[in-house]
């Protein structure tokens, strides 16, 4: 599969065939998820209706971290095996990861104000490590834009993404290592989720919807990058 898709032409054919289906699935899941979260979940016994923010906050935060893992993984493959699509995959994922991370910060802040009494707290390790994740994404994107030669840019950006990967475990374990504002994990934890089923299923639907939407946009952006590289090589051929 990976070798098969290494050819950009085959990747374009394959992704063009599957993209509309992935897009349709994303819209179905998101429509169901948003409906379920807004109209068919009870208020929490402690948080009241502010718990509704969880359904847009947790999926965004999870995407920000998962996309980073994919980006760093693709960067590593690009560095080690020189897989032609790996750099394209890593570069295309970054803006989406940054968008989801920004959403996680914004929605979290809107939940923090009524529940913790503050929009932001510099002393909280989870909040600060999540903000650092956003800055790493922005730095990664800036680095790609700063270097003209795509081969050199890919290498520098890949190294940045691997160094930045150190932030990912910090984000995950920050709630245990520094017990400040943000509550400990309630979903991805040893022993299984602790939140109630009436919240868990709509939350999973939203997380799946966000994931499938990301996969669709990732394919679209990878196609874009392949077209841009093709245009670039045509321009250079003409100039020569």
């Amino acid at each position: 599969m990976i070798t098969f898709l290494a050819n950009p032409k085959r990747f374009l054919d394959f992704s063009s065939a599957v993209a509309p289906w992935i897009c349709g699935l994303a819209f179905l899941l998101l429509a169901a998820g948003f409906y379920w979260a807004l109209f068919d979940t009870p208020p929490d016994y402690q948080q009241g209706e502010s718990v509704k923010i969880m359904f847009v906050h947790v999926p965004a935060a999870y995407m920000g971290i998962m996309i980073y893992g994919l980006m760093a993984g693709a960067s590593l493959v690009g560095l080690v095996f020189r897989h032609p699509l790996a750099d394209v995959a890593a570069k295309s994922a970054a803006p989406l990861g940054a968008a989801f991370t920004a959403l996680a910060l914004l929605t979290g802040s809107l939940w923090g104000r009524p529940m913790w009494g503050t929009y932001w707290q510099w002393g909280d390790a989870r909040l600060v490590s999540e903000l650092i994740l956003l800055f790493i994404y922005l730095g990664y994107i800036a680095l790609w834009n700063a270097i003209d030669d795509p081969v050199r840019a890919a290498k520098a950006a890949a190294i940045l993404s691997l160094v930045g990967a150190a932030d990912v475990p910090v984000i995950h374990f920050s709630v245990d290592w520094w017990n400040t504002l943000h509550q400990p994990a309630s979903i991805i934890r040893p022993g299984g989720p602790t939140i109630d089923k009436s919240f868990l299923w709509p939350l999973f639907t939203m997380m799946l919807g966000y994931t499938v939407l990301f996969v669709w946009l990732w394919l679209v952006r990878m196609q874009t990058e392949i077209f841009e590289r093709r245009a670039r090589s045509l321009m250079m051929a003409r100039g020569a």
Partner: protein
Amino acid sequence: MAAFLAMGGYAVFVWPAYIISVLVLLAAIVVSLQGRARARRSVRRLEEDSGETGENQT
């Protein structure tokens, strides 16, 4: 309906969170699709200019 919109007193936090989420997701879709359309057009234009069919290359 009014009770639903009031979100148990948390309307000023819940609704902005949902509105921002939907807007950012929509913006990501629009920007990504526009970018692909633009890139596709420029490849097509360059291929026409250089008299290639674009069938055999990527």
